[in-house]
């Protein structure tokens, strides 16, 4: 009796496997037909990065939907296959390979953390595929097979420090989470501050899971900085700002300039604790362009009135349109031809943040830089912006102080 049951299950399982193979074969062949073309979306849908990456994957879907309504790319509708990177770099690598090799997608929009990007980079290079990456990062990279739509350090960190120096801040305290982005960022900031003849009075790294900032706050008190440059990521920000406020400190006592706090994070930390603190990005929900009004309205209409748009979501949205522009210039979905189109340096897009142009040499975007102030309503308002888009310089080769300090990628 029992044996019979097991046999039945085995047969059923075999049949299931067979049908699955058949159907996945069907899918693999379907990278697109006469009417459609398939792209891959690769973000964390589960795990600790899920909510951040959900916003960028939503923005990509919005762009795809808009393009499809307007007639598609080269007359083809865009279909997408979404895979879950599960906040884990090795899963990202596996899923990237699956999308490229098995699903034969024409391009992939994906990743958020630097570690996930570094994990998939060799996969895209080996298969000669193309990844569109949407988040500001630490720079020191320029792969043939990646387009970086977020800010390079000279489009976020360097202008922010310039602004602070201009405003007369003299003593800088650097604080960040202990991983590659904050460590590289702080290396850059230290070189820049010292070159301006000013002083870095302390550098502190918090553990990723750190919940108690009492010791770091007393070190800040002892160092007496004018401004704190904050590269904490994730929940550390909440603990830090809560524990600053319980000591009655506001932006009047210690001004902070944060590089990982966008609209989504402001909501989670609580606007009251962040009022008047500074951030640096290329785009805010409040950015005053006609394109942005449409973008914010479309985003809220599709995903809910209480959702906010942020810099990474906007960059993800840009990516899809840039890919469309590159494909149309190339007249083909073929990766080599698309890369050739990208490297012509003539791909640009009138984005919510303003006109952006894809730099053919390093695959980064020329984009405007905006220093913002967080206000009590939880939104970020621009207080200073660059008059023209800033050319990307991921290796900081055009900055004498950076060359002199010999800044190298941390591997």
């Amino acid at each position, binding site marked *: 009796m029992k044996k019979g049951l097991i046999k039945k299950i085995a047969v059923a399982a075999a049949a299931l496997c067979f049908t699955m193979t058949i159907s996945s074969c069907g899918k693999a062949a379907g990278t697109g037909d006469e009417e459609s073309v398939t792209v891959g979306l690769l973000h964390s849908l589960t795990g600790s990065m899920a909510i951040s990456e959900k916003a960028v994957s939503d923005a990509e879907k919005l762009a795809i939907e808009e393009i499809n309504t307007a007639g598609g790319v080269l007359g083809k509708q865009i279909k997408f296959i979404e895979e879950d990177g599960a906040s884990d770099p090795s899963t990202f690598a596996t899923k990237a390979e699956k999308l490229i090799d098995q699903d034969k997608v024409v391009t992939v929009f994906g990743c958020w953390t630097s570690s996930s990007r570094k994990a998939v980079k060799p996969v895209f290079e080996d298969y000669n595929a193309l990844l569109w990456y949407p988040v500001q990062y630490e720079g020191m990279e320029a792969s043939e097979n990646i387009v970086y739509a977020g800010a390079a350090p000279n489009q976020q960190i360097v202008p922010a420090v310039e602004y602070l120096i201009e405003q007369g801040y003299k003593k800088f305290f650097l604080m960040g989470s202990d991983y590659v982005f904050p460590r590289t960022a702080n290396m850059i900031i230290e070189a820049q501050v010292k070159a301006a003849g000013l002083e870095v009075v302390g550098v*502190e790294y918090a553990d990723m899971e750190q919940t108690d900032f*009492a010791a770091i706050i*007393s070190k800040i008190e002892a160092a007496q900085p004018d401004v704190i440059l904050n590269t904490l990521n994730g*929940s550390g920000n909440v603990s830090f700002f809560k524990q600053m406020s319980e000591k*009655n400190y506001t932006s009047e006592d210690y001004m902070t300039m944060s590089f990982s706090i966008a609209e989504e994070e402001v909501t989670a930390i609580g606007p009251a604790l962040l009022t008047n603190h500074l951030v640096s990005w290329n785009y805010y929900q409040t950015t005053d362009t006609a394109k942005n009004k449409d973008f914010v309205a479309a985003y809220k209409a599709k995903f809910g009135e209480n959702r906010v748009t942020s810099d990474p979501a906007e960059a993800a949205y840009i990516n899809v349109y840039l890919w469309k522009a590159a494909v149309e210039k190339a007249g083909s979905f073929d990766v080599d031809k698309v890369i050739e189109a990208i490297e012509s340096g003539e791909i640009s897009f009138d984005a919510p943040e303003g006109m952006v142009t894809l730099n053919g040499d390093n695959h980064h975007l020329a984009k405007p830089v905006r220093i913002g102030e967080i206000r009590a309503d939880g939104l970020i308002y621009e207080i200073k912006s660059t008059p023209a888009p800033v050319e990307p310089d991921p290796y900081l080769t055009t900055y004498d102080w950076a060359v002199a300090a010999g800044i190298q990628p941390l591997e």
Partner: protein
Amino acid sequence: MDQLVTTLFNGLSLSSIYLLVALGLSITFGQMGVINMAHGEFVMLGAYTTFCTQELFANFLPEQVGSIYYFAAIVLAFFVTFALGCLLEKLLISKLYGRKIDSLLATWGVSLILQQAVRTIFGAQGVNVNAPSFLKGGLAVKGVTFSYNRIFIIILVAFCLVMVWLLVNRSRYGSRMRATMQNRPMAQCMGINTKKIDCITFGIGSGLAGIAGCSVALLGSVDSTVGQNYIVYSFMTVVLGGAGNLFGTVIGAAIIGFSSIFVENYQSASIARAIVLLIIIIFLQFKPSGLFTVRSRVLDEGV
């Protein structure tokens, strides 16, 4: 001098937080011997209960009573996690007594389920718990600021500690509980319903985690992984202090809390963590069963 006072206060505060999280564990792990990996998730659920209470009060009650929501949250968090603890004990843990590795794996599974459930309901970004108005800011005494939050947590811990001590050592229920944990067959012979005792004891341990959740919500973020940040330290506290000994847990928390803060004053946070672990490892080399040990038949038998 100011520096020293601040450091001592920070150390006391950190110790009290570790102690509050470990207190429940000293009952479920220390007394009952259950390795409950979901303990951190009960802390997380306590924090989310605080958030829900805050939202309920903000939406349905007039503003004047707004800040007393926090007291209601403490009571509610205790009962919510108490109920869930009892449920977990009945459905899962009671089937796994004496199978430590199995219960470790099963409760770890439960912790993952609870994390994902919270992420699905509330979103992974985390929610915002505001300190009630009477706990905002701090008391400045001659250049040193003592935050009201932390003072309140220290008082809350002291209160919980006294209550647990009274419950275990001075109440009728406590003597039944100790009897059950020390010699189960004999306790059963004496007419004690040991299954009920197990269930309630586990519930109380979980309820204390809920209260800890209320207090950590004041200090940091409330998201699905908040419990994970405390679970390792709270196990270390209980192991260092000696399983099954309340006083040991207090000393264990003090050693970990004060040494973390002192080391971090001179070193980075990551090094501080490593050094504290090193201290614990060296310590356990000489005192493998912790600072204070309880002699009982259960431990003699090595069950």
